[in-house]
Structures are given as C-alpha cells and as structure tokens.
C-alpha cells in the first residue's frame, strides 16, 4: 500500500463534507447492532428461552393428580405455575446476559471505544436498556406462551387445565415477559455498577435466587414485608393467577415494585457512569 492510495481514500469523503451527529436514536441503533453482532447474545438468549419452555413442558408432562399440585382446580392457576416453572432459571440467563452486555464492555476494553464515540455516556445506558429490555421482554413472552401452549396440550383433560382465553391467563404470561424483561435491565445496570462480569452475575444470581430465602433471618413481620417486594417475589405476583398466599402482593403492586427497583438501579448506574472515570 502506498502513501498515494492512503491519502486519496482518506479524502475521498471529504469533498461531500458530511455532517455527522450523535443522536439518541443513533445510539440505540448502535446498541442494537452491538447486541446482535455477538454470538454470546444469541446463545444466552436461546438458553433463557430453552429453560423457560423446556422446564415448563417437563413440569406439565410430569403432572399427575396425585402429585404436589393434585387436588387443585383450574381456578388455582396450577397450570400456569407449571408452565412458568422455568422462570427463575430463565431469569438467571436473561440477567447474566444483561450483565455481559454492560460489564463485558469493561472487561474487553470496548467501553473506551463506546464512550469515545458517545462521551455523554448516559445515552449509552438508556440505549442499552431500551434495546435489551424489549428484546428480553419479547423473547420471554413468546417463550412463556410456547411453554403454556405445549403444557396445555399435555394437561388436556386434567382438572387444572386452562386455556389462553381464560381470565387472567394472558396477563400472567405477559407478566412473566415483563418480569424477565426487567431482570434484563437489572442485569445491565448491575453490570455498569460493578464493571465485572463474574461479580455482576454473582450479585444478580444472589438477588434473584438466594435473597428471598435470607429474609427468613429477619424478624418475621419485617421479613415478610421485605420479602414480598423483592424482585423475585414481586415478579411472582405479576405472573400468578390468584395470589393465594400472604407472600405475594397484588399484580399491580408487584409491577410497581419491579419498576421501582429498575428506577433505583438505573439511577445508581447513571450516577456511577457520570462520576467515575472509565
């Protein structure tokens, strides 16, 4: 390669004098492209859907009227409980992917390119959530729907069988999608807060899987209240047909709690992004 070709191709676009500009929409477009151009996104998202569908279908297939959920009727929502049995594991996958999308930029150094292009930084946080939240929501909702439909086929004729048209069923499936979509956002924010893949995933797994069990250590009245509003239990309440036990709040309150968690985490991540060096 000679110097002539270099200079001529550098200047080739100069005569047109293009006027570039960073906009919110363009940052979203960039994050969208970043998401789909990594193999880990496809794999982890696939794993999340697989957990959701496979565990739901197996749970439905293994159902017998003599089992733990035996003796319940359709109104109990047991069919939904079975269909959504994989939600916790799916949440782990979805959340871990969220962490990888943000903390992964720090571990690879990509973050320097990202913030050199968008030095305002915050648009990147919003764009990551605006891209990954909906992606996680849509795939999870479809996964929940598939799990329910396949499970319904297995439960056909059983006392607990429900159909998609029954009251509240669609809300629960959608609720599972909303919960997992928000867990994805939690993952992105936790990743930005700790800037470390392993640490972020550990924290996320702890909050989703371990923390609910630890509230038992608190004095019972306080423990119950705290427990209800933890992301995992609040998530359960948006995807449960009837809150049968005291451990769950109403779907509306659950959704509010999930959104409050998201806002708190986003605020924390935004602060850290603004304040700290990359």
């Amino acid at each position, binding site marked *: *390669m*000679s*110097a002539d070709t*270099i*200079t001529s*191709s*550098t*200047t*080739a*676009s*100069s005569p047109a*004098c*293009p*006027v*570039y*500009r*960073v*906009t919110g929409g*363009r*940052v979203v*477009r*960039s994050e969208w*492209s*970043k998401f789909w*151009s*990594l*193999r*880990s996104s496809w794999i982890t998202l696939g794993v999340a859907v697989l957990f959701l569908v496979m565990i739901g279908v197996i749970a439905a297939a293994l159902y017998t009227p003599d089992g733990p959920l035996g003796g319940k009727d359709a109104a109990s929502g047991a069919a939904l409980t079975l269909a959504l049995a994989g939600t916790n594991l799916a949440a782990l996958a979805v959340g871990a992917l969220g962490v990888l999308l943000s903390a*992964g*930029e720090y571990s*690879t*150094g*990509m*973050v*320097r*390119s990202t*913030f*050199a*292009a*968008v*030095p*305002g930084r915050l648009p990147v946080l919003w764009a990551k959530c605006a891209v990954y939240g909906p992606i996680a929501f849509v795939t999870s909702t479809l996964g929940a729907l598939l799990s329910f439909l396949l499970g319904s086929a297995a439960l056909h004729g059983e006392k607990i069988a429900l159909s998609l048209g029954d009251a509240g069923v669609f809300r629960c499936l959608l609720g599972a999608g909303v919960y997992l979509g928000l867990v994805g956002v939690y993952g992105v924010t936790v990743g930005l807060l700790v800037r470390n893949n392993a640490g972020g995933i550990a924290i996320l797994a702890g909050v989703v899987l371990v923390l609910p069990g630890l509230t038992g250590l608190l004095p019972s009245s306080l423990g119950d209240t705290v427990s209800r509003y933890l992301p995992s239990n609040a998530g359960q309440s948006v995807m449960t047909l009837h809150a049968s036990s005291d451990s769950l709040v109403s779907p509306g309150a659950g959704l509010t709690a999930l959104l409050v968690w998201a806002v708190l985490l986003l605020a924390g991540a935004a602060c850290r992004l603004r304040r700290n*060096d*990359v």
Partner: protein
Amino acid sequence: MPGQTEAGSDSVIEVRELTKRYGDKTAVDDLSFTAPPGQVTGFLGPNGAGKSTTMRMIVGLDAPTSGTALVNGRPYAQHRAPLQELGVLLEARAVHPGRSAFHHLMALAYTHGVPRRRVEEVIDLAGLHAVAHKRVGAFSLGMGQRLGIAAALLGDPAVVMLDEPVNGLDPEGVRWVRELLRGLAAEGRTVMLSSHLMSEMAQTADRLVVVGRGRLLAETTVDALVERSEDKGVRVATGEPARLRSLLAAPGVTVTSTGAERLVVSGLDTRRIGQVAAEHRVPLYELVTESVSLEEAFMHLTQDAVEYHSSDAGRAA
C-alpha cells in the same frame, strides 16, 4: 475540514494546566501544551510519564483533577459529533474480541450516522479487507492496531490522536503509519501521536512535547532538538596525542584523552584540527565529529524523570 465548520476555530488540541491525581500519586502534573494543525506533534516520554492518562483526559474518559483539555475550542464531550472532531487510538485494546472488525466499526458508525460506505473505506485504508468479517479476538497485535487506526479515522476527523500507534506493527506497517500520519498533517489536520521511542518520532513528528513523571520537560521541534544535541566534540586518533594536545591548547578548547591514541576535542571543528595537525606534521588516523544521537538527547532530557528504571522493568507496563 469538517471539524472546523462547527467550532469555527482551528483544529487543535489545547491542554492547559492539566493535573490528574490517583490518591497520593500524581500521574499528570500541571501539564500545558498545544498541538497545532498541519503538523505532527510527537508526545514523547518514558513509560509511566502520563502520556496515556493525558490522552484519556483529552477524550473525556478520565476527568482531570484540575485544568482543562480542549479539542477544537471545547471539551471533547461537548461536541455534537465527537468522532468527527477527534479520532483516537488508545494504547489499551478497545474492542470486543467476539465482534468482527466490520461490526465493531459499524457500531461506532451508527452512533454518528456515518454511512456504511465510509466504514468500508476505512477497512480498505487500513488493509483489513481480507479479515473484516473475522472475529477481532483472532487478530494479531498488528491487525488490532490497524483496526484501532481505522476506527480513529472513521469520522474523518480534523484531529487524529494515536497512542503508541506502531506497537506490534511490522516494518511495512510502521512505514504505512508514518506515511499516513504525514499525509493527514499535509491535509491540514492536527496529528498527535505518543511514543517512548525517540527514533520513531524523529522520522514522523515535526514538533515534540516531551514529558516525564507527568510534567512537561520540553515543547520543541525535532530540528531544534537535533541542533541542540550536536555538540559533543571531535574524536581524534593520532600517533602523537601528547603533542597534538599541546598544539591545540587555547582558551575555550578542551581536550580529553579517551585512550592511548585517542582524544576528544571540543571548541574546535574538524577543519581546524586537521589544519593544525598538517602544519605540524602530526599523523592523524581518525577525525570525526561526534554528534549526540536524538536518542541520547532524549535520554538526557528525561533521565531524571524516568519513572521506572530498569531494575523495575517488570512493573513498567
């Protein structure tokens, strides 16, 4: 120049009283310098002198403890199209290894609305055409540098700032970078590159900003440094050193003996020494002007400011 349209000022990097402290360690200490358009400014200093930290502050990745860094008249982060103002290659890798070179550049291009055509242009320019769709993780160090340079040029920037651009490049690649940077400067752009190697700078840069331990040691031109360094004396080998010594003795002339038949004379040039020797029939075997190499001049300039001496070389990352 695209960058000049918006800011309305010259395409320059302007660093004023920049300081960065990490705890009680001062990485950059009250540093001020300017990189003007149309020239290649070399940012020179030993490892740990604060070059990379300074560059990170210029693009807003690190916030200065005090002072300012302006790109084309404003802080980098306040530009509407930062990649069009300044393109940067940072020393540490800044690419996700799982993404292809093409997708990496596209991701950056999308943020600014840079068309795909321009992405393909910089891929060709950097000689990455054959590997554009391979994962960056499989790239050699040299190809990684080429990708970084392609990314720096993506926005057709008025200012180009490269941290150790020739690291890991083969001789052909080194020449390519040199010609590329000279070409960019010839187009009127501001070019700044850092290095810890004087020899490399001498061939590429017009101006030099020399730093050590975060402080400015010199802001000069390569030519001025060359002139300043050429005064070490004349090396003479003769069969009669003692006699020549007394013949040359004069105010302002010093003669030192460096071996049985060897002298180093300062204050006289080769012509004068040769004349004296011929007049008195003193045989000369060698008569050479000893010039200090740029490398030596640089070492001399920075010797007190070297952060890590060779005993600590392992830590000098």
